[in-house]
């Protein structure tokens, strides 16, 4: 890829980031499945990753953004693994992954 027009590049990547964010937020608001909510969070993280990398490329600091993205990926994995464990626990308690049933929990 050639960095021809930085404003154009940022506009295009920013636009697709916004589309991914909209899809993720919509899914997070509308869904009732625990695992699909986790998928929505994943999409939000992917949007942020894309924007970080695009900004690093445009500003000429790919090393700094790569380091941040690697941290984000580690956080992403931990979030998914813990959410998976919680999903299995919720399923064993409620026999369903419906997030509306989480009201039954203590606390």
């Amino acid at each position: 890829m050639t960095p021809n027009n930085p404003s154009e590049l940022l506009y295009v990547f920013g636009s697709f980031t916004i589309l991914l964010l909209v899809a993720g937020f919509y899914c997070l608001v509308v869904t009732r499945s625990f695992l699909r909510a986790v998928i929505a969070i994943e999409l939000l993280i992917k949007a942020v990753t894309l924007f970080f990398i695009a900004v690093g490329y445009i500003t000429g600091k790919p090393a700094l953004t790569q380091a941040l993205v690697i941290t984000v990926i580690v956080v992403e994995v931990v979030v998914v693994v813990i959410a998976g464990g919680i999903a299995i626990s919720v399923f064993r308690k409620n026999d369903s992954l419906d997030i509306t049933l989480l009201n039954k929990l203590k606390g």
Partner: protein
Amino acid sequence: MNTIDIVLLVAMTLAAVWSVMGRSLLKATIGLAVTSAILSILIFRLGSPLAAVFELSVCTGLITVVFVSTISLTKPLTHKDIIEMSKKRNRRFIYLPIILGLVAFALIRAGIPKGLIMSTGETVGNVTEVLWNMRQLDMFGQVILIIAGALGVVVLFAEAKDDAK
């Protein structure tokens, strides 16, 4: 900006929408893996090969495996249940393509805003230098997070084991 980048970005958005709207959770997981794979190609093309390798191996590989394992540990729905649930879900998700279309239209209509790029400052060295010399606190944070994740899984599975007794 090449045409291939636009094609990749559009394909990634479509895969993301498919993963959100897909009928079964397994298909949604596959959609997420496809999104990750396309994102890793984009990251590589944007001059960040190390982050691309992490994205491909961890997000496309490991996270998909974790999702599939979680789905397999929960009770699968019958085909009839899936069709029944998808009818209800389709009613909730039908507005997503419309909203995305409206947002895309608004973004195209707005055009490229002026003064989008701010001053960039100094250029830093390579990624290993940044990770080990400039962002040491991030590395400690990552180590703590991984330990917390491992402990969390141990506690959750132990709890599940107690319940089984």
